[in-house]
C-alpha cells in the first residue's frame, strides 16, 4: 500500500496532538495532583505512536512508546512526577516534534537512543536525579521496591470522564433543566469543562445538548441513572459514548482540505452577489413567478452561506494551544514567575482569521511577559504576589470576537512613552497626556520600542506594530488599557468571518459606501440643533451622550452642495469609542462579499475594501476603526 499520500494527514494530526501535549504538560506541571492532563497526554502520545507505526516511522514510534510507558507509570502512581520528570517529558515532546517533522519530510533520523533510555529508566523509577542518570544505566538494577504500592490506587480514585446530556426537544426552559442536571452532577462529584458555557445555557442558546466532565468515584451506570432522573432529560451518555458525540463531532466527521472550503466559500460569495442582483431585477420586473423563484433562491443561498460559514468556524483553542508552553519558556528564559491562564478556548472564529491571529497574539504575550510582568523581587517590593499573571481570553461580542491579553505587571509608563514619542516626532509638543487611544497609536508606530535593550524576547519594536498591522488587515481593531503599577490589557477585536458580512449601505456625494454592521451601534438623524462641540470638533448629542461627528461627504471631498436640515447618521462603535458618521442617505442593508483589496496609492485610510452591490456596481467598504 502506498502510504505517502497519508503523510500530510499524519503530520497535521501529529502536530495537533503535540501542541495539545505541550498544553497538557504545562497544565499538569502547575497542578501535579490533577489526573486529567496526564490522561490526555497519554492518549495523545499513544495516538502518535499508533500513527507512526502504521506509517512505518519506527524511530518516532519507539520514542513515543517509551514516553507512553513513562506516562503510564506516572498515571498509575508507580512513578512520582518530579521537576526532573517534567523536564524529561518536555524534552521528549520536543524531540518527538522534530522526529515527526523529519519523518513526514522523508528523512527520518535514528531514534534518540539516549533519550529513550532516560525515559525507560524514569518509567521504572524512582525518579532519576535529572541528568545524572547515565543513559546506559541498567534499568533493571533499580529496585521497584517499596515505593511501588501507593495509597491511591487508580481503581478507587475518582475518575474524570466526559458526560453528554440531551434535554428532550420541546421542553420548556431547557437552560433551567440543564442547571438542574448540573446541580445534580455537582452532588456526585466535581464538574468541569462545561460546554456550551453556563451563560449560553442559561440564555437557552443551545440545541438541548451539553457536555461536561465529571470527576467521581461512581460507576458510569450510576451517573447515567442519577442524571437521567432529572425531569425532561432525554439521554445521558457517559465516557466513550459521550466523547464520540462530543465537540464538533456531533455526528461523524471527515477531514477536508482547507483549500476546498476556501473555493466553496468563494463560489458562495459570488452566488450571494448574483442572488442580490436577481432579487433586485425580479423586484423591478414584477413577474410573480420570477419573484417567487428569486425568493426561493435567496433562501437557499442564505442557508448555504450559513452552512459554509459554520464549516469554516474553528475554536480559538487551536491557536491558543501553543501559548502555555510559550509562556512557560518565556518565564524560564526571563527569570520571572508567570502564571498563564486561558479562557474562552471554545469560542469560534472563521478559519482564515484564526490562521492570522496567532502571530499578533504571540507578540502581545511576549510583550506582556517581557515588559509587563516584573521580576519576582520587584513585584514583592511593590506589594504584589511574586507570581505575575497573564490571561489570554476570548469572548464573543456581537458580531466580533474580542481577544484579550491581560497582565498584572507594571503597566505602561505614559510619561516615558510620551517623552520618547516627542523625541521621535511621533507626538507634537501640544500633547501633554497620552490617552489610551493615543498610546496605542504611538506604540504601534513601526519600530517604536521602549525597551532599553533588545532582550531576544522582545524589544525590537516589532511587537505592537506587527500586531496592529495584522489585525487591521483583518478588519479588526487593537486597543490598549493600561494603569501604571497595575498592568495592561491589549484587546484585539476581529470580525467573526471575513468573506461575507452584513453591511449598511450609505450614500454620500453621489457614491455608495458599505459600513459593516458589526460596528454599527444605531442610526439617528443629524439635526443641526443637536450639535455641540468638544475640543473644537463638531459633536452630536444623542441621549445625553456627546459623540464627535464625521461628515462622509467632506471626507470623500464631494463638491456638490451640502444638504441642509436633517441628515441620516450612523453611530459607529468600536469598543467604547463612538463616532457619528453623517451621510446623505441610507439605502438599507445587504450581504456584501468582501473582495481582497490591495489599496491603490492615494486610497484614503478609511477605506477597508471593496465589494460589488446587488445592481452589479462596485462600492467601497468603510473601515470603521479608521473613522474613530
Amino acid at each position, binding site marked *: 500500500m502506498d502510504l505517502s499520500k497519508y503523510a500530510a494527514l499524519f503530520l497535521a494530526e501529529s502536530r495537533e496532538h503535540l501542541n495539545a501535549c505541550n498544553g497538557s504538560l504545562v497544565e499538569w506541571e502547575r497542578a501535579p495532583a490533577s489526573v486529567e492532563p496526564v490522561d490526555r497526554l497519554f492518549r495523545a502520545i499513544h495516538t502518535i505512536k499508533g500513527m507512526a507505526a502504521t506509517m512505518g516511522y519506527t524511530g518516532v514510534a519507539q520514542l513515543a512508546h517509551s514516553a507512553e510507558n513513562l506516562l503510564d507509570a506516572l498515571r498509575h502512581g508507580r512513578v512520582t512526577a518530579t521537576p526532573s520528570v517534567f523536564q524529561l517529558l518536555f524534552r521528549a515532546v520536543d524531540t518527538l516534534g522534530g522526529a515527526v517533522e523529519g519523518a513526514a519530510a522523508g528523512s527520518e533520523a535514528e531514534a534518540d537512543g539516549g533519550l529513550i533510555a532516560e525515559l525507560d529508566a524514569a518509567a521504572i523509577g524512582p525518579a532519576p536525579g535529572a541528568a545524572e542518570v547515565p543513559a546506559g544505566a541498567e534499568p533493571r538494577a533499580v529496585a521497584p521496591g517499596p515505593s511501588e504500592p501507593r495509597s491511591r490506587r487508580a481503581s478507587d480514585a475518582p475518575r474524570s470522564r466526559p458526560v453528554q446530556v440531551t434535554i428532550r426537544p420541546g421542553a*420548556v*426552559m431547557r*437552560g*433551567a433543566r440543564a*442547571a*438542574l442536571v448540573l*446541580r445534580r452532577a455537582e452532588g456526585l462529584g466535581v464538574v468541569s469543562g462545561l460546554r456550551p458555557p453556563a451563560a449560553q445555557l*442559561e*440564555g*437557552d442558546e443551545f440545541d438541548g445538548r451539553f457536555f461536561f466532565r465529571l470527576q467521581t468515584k461512581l460507576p458510569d451506570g450510576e451517573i447515567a441513572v442519577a442524571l437521567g*432522573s*432529572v*425531569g425532561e432529560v432525554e439521554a445521558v451518555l457517559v465516557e466513550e459514548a459521550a466523547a464520540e458525540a462530543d465537540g464538533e463531532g456531533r455526528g461523524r466527521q471527515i477531514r477536508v482540505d482547507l483549500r476546498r472550503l476556501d473555493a466553496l466559500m468563494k463560489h458562495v460569495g459570488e452566488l450571494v452577489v448574483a442572488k442580490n442582483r436577481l432579487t433586485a431585477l425580479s423586484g423591478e420586473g414584477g413577474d410573480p413567478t420570477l419573484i417567487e423563484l428569486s425568493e426561493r433562491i435567496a433562501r437557499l443561498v442564505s442557508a448555504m452561506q450559513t452552512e459554509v460559514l459554520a464549516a469554516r468556524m474553528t475554536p480559538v483553542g487551536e491557536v491558543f494551544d501553543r501559548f502555555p508552553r510559550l509562556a512557560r519558556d518565556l518565564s524560564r528564559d526571563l527569570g520571572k514567575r508567570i502564571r498563564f491562564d486561558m479562557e474562552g478556548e471554545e469560542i469560534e472564529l472563521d478559519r482564515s482569521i484564526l490562521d492570522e491571529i496567532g502571530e499578533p497574539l504571540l507578540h502581545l504575550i511576549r510583550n506582556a511577559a517581557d515588559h509587563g510582568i516584573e521580576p519576582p523581587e520587584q513585584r514583592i517590593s511593590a506589594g504584589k504576589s511574586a507570581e505575575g499573571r497573564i490571561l489570554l481570553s476570548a469572548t464573543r461580542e456581537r458580531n466580533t470576537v474580542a481577544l484579550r491579553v491581560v497582565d498584572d505587571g507594571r503597566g505602561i509608563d505614559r510619561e516615558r512613552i510620551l517623552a520618547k514619542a516627542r523625541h521621535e516626532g511621533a507626538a507634537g509638543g501640544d500633547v501633554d497626556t497620552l490617552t489610551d487611544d493615543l498610546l496605542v497609536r504611538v506604540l504601534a508606530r513601526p519600530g517604536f520600542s521602549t525597551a532599553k535593550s533588545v532582550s531576544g524576547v522582545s524589544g525590537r519594536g516589532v511587537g505592537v506594530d506587527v500586531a496592529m498591522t495584522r489585525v487591521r488587515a483583518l478588519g479588526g481593531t487593537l486597543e490598549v488599557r493600561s494603569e501604571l503599577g497595575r498592568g495592561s490589557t491589549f484587546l484585539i477585536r476581529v470580525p467573526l468571518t471575513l468573506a461575507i458580512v452584513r453591511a449598511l449601505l450609505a450614500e454620500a456625494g453621489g457614491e455608495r459606501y458599505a459600513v459593516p454592521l458589526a460596528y454599527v451601534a444605531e442610526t439617528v438623524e443629524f439635526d443641526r440643533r443637536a450639535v455641540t462641540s468638544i475640543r473644537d470638533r463638531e459633536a452630536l448629542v444623542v441621549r445625553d451622550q456627546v459623540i464627535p461627528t464625521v461628515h462622509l461627504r467632506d471626507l470623500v471631498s464631494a463638491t456638490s452642495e451640502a444638504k441642509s436640515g436633517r441628515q441620516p447618521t450612523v453611530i459607529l462603535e468600536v469598543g467604547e469609542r463612538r463616532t457619528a458618521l453623517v451621510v446623505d442617505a441610507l439605502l438599507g442593508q445587504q450581504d456584501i462579499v468582501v473582495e481582497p483589496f490591495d489599496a491603490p496609492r492615494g486610497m484614503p485610510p478609511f477605506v477597508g475594501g471593496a465589494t460589488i452591490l446587488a445592481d452589479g456596481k462596485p462600492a467601497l467598504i468603510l473601515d470603521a476603526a479608521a473613522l474613530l
Partner: protein
Amino acid sequence: MNQTVLVCDDAIFMRTMISDILSQAGFEVVGEAESGLQAVEKYRMLKPDLVTMDIVMPDMGGIEAVREICKNDPEAKILMCSAMGQQALVVEAIQAGAKDFVVKPFQPSRVLEAVQRVLA
C-alpha cells in the same frame, strides 16, 4: 398518611388551582402562603413534605425564600412555579436549592410529574 404540601403564591387563583391539582392527586395541602416571608414562617411551623413556590411575590420573593428555607433545612423539597420568560430566575432558584420547576400555564399532569420527581 398523605404527603403534605405548602402552596406559596401571591395570587389566590394560582393557589387554588395548585391546591386542587394536588388534592385531587391525594396530597394534603396543609398551608398556603402569599409572600416569601410567610412561606419561610409556615415552612418552619408545618414542616411540609413539599413546597410549591412562586418566584415573584411581595415581601421577600420566592428565590430568597428558597434560600432561607434551605439554610435551615437543606433537604427541603421545593418546586418552583415560574412563568414563561423567567429562565434566569429559575436558574437562580435552582442554584439556591430548588429541586425542580414547572412553567405556567400549568398542565396538571406536568405538575404531578414534577412533584413525583421532587419527592422521589
